[in-house]
């Protein structure tokens, strides 16, 4: 079930990336192409087979996981700035790229690396599932959830205003999907509270969050295309 969801998410992200190629070649909004490509790479590195392959190249001591963490931080920094600016949320943008936001990002990055190298990380294992459990691993995992959650919280108010506004229906639906993805990321902060018998919930929430976020961003682009096309027919 989770594997299907993971691969489905990856294919959708790859399709969305491919759709952005023509406009990226034309030089329109290249950042969105980079963002979709980054999301696809993030998903790729979180699936077992590709992870084991790539981590093998990197020396088999789970450096791939650290790479994934840093790529996720980059993805969320980029997405945070873009989305906050798009939804006209000046306070959200300040909280992400202002001194506080960069300090949060820096601290998260340094601590992530610190805990990673403090652990015995030999033998590739996706999501570090087979490493020895311990406080270092818990903190490492919590940090990985923290920064995306931080960005999500900064973005939610601005998007919520748009969902409740009176813009085009498709745009509002896409914004709501994006909002759902970000809300799920916020929910993921409480993963340690999920009982061990229900750990399957974690990947389900993670991949649903990624899927909703990607679909929301894709939907916004679609709503623009649809609006441009209808206005052209009217004229």
């Amino acid at each position: 079930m989770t594997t299907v969801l993971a691969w489905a998410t990856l294919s959708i992200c790859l399709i969305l990336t491919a759709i952005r190629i023509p406009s990226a070649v034309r030089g329109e909004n290249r950042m969105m192409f980079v963002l979709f490509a980054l999301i696809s790479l993030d998903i790729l590195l979180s699936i077992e087979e590709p992870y084991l392959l790539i981590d093998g190249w990197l020396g088999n001591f789970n450096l791939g996981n650290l790479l994934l963490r840093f790529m996720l931080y980059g993805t969320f920094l980029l997405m945070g700035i873009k989305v906050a600016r798009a939804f006209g949320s000046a306070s959200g943008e300040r909280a992400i790229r202002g001194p506080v936001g960069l300090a949060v990002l820096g601290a998260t990055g340094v601590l992530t690396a610190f805990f990673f190298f403090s652990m015995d990380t030999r033998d590739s294992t996706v999501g570090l599932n087979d490493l020895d459990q311990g406080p270092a691993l818990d903190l490492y995992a919590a940090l990985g959830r923290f920064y995306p959650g931080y960005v999500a919280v900064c973005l939610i108010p601005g998007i919520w205003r748009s969902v409740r506004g009176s813009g085009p229906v498709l745009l509002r639906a896409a914004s709501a999907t994006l909002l759902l993805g970000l809300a799920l990321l916020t929910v993921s902060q409480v993963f340690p509270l999920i009982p061990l018998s229900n750990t399957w919930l974690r990947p389900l929430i993670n991949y649903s969050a990624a899927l909703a976020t990607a679909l929301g961003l894709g939907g916004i682009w679609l709503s623009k295309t649809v609006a441009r096309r209808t206005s052209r027919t009217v004229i």
Partner: protein
Amino acid sequence: MSLPSKAFQRWLHGIAPNTSTADVCRFSGVKRTTLAQQLVRGKVAESSLVSISRAFDMNPFDALAQFEAYAALRGTPVPPTDAELVSQVSTMDLLRAVVEREEPREGVAPLVLAETPHASSVRNWVDAIDDGELRHRVSDATGIAPQNFSAHLTANRLPPELALATSRAGGVGPAGGLVASGLVTEAEAGWRPGARRDALDRMTEGELALLAGERLQALGKALRRHEHELDHTNRIWENLG
């Protein structure tokens, strides 16, 4: 907010005994599937009744009056107040009236008012009969939440039953809301031809200028809101599209 199927069918049989439903729909321009659905659900929309009565050369206002929920429309018609009449003059016509009054020019054709309803007719009508407590009384009488009532005004629509309740709460004749919402025309509602124009002429220059100013202010606000929303949408598309 609708007419019972049974009563509607009895009425339809009364005005067009030998016409099939298909023909009724063809003459009146009401979509056949729409009417069929309304009949099945037991709730026929007032707008269907209006279109059909017009197609059969019957006054829709009188047709409505035959239904129990619209019994208030029966009897001697209550003429509209001046405030109601002026509220049904569009903002642009009101501005033209100011210009005509203040700077009359030779050889310029006199102002002919546009047909009812206009772009903000519902809100203007409610404002015209509101003594400050109207919304409370409507909300008490019908159970509609004040914010839902406001939403109707903003969207410039007013369901017929709510229109009746509002005129009752405002202490004016029952027709005003039906005209303001565009369900029936002023002529169908029995308003005298030229009544709106005469009401305008009875206003003093000062009253006219003040009212035009208020309307222009409201129009400006609505346009700004719309532009703001458009900017917001374009900004999202520019950044994420």
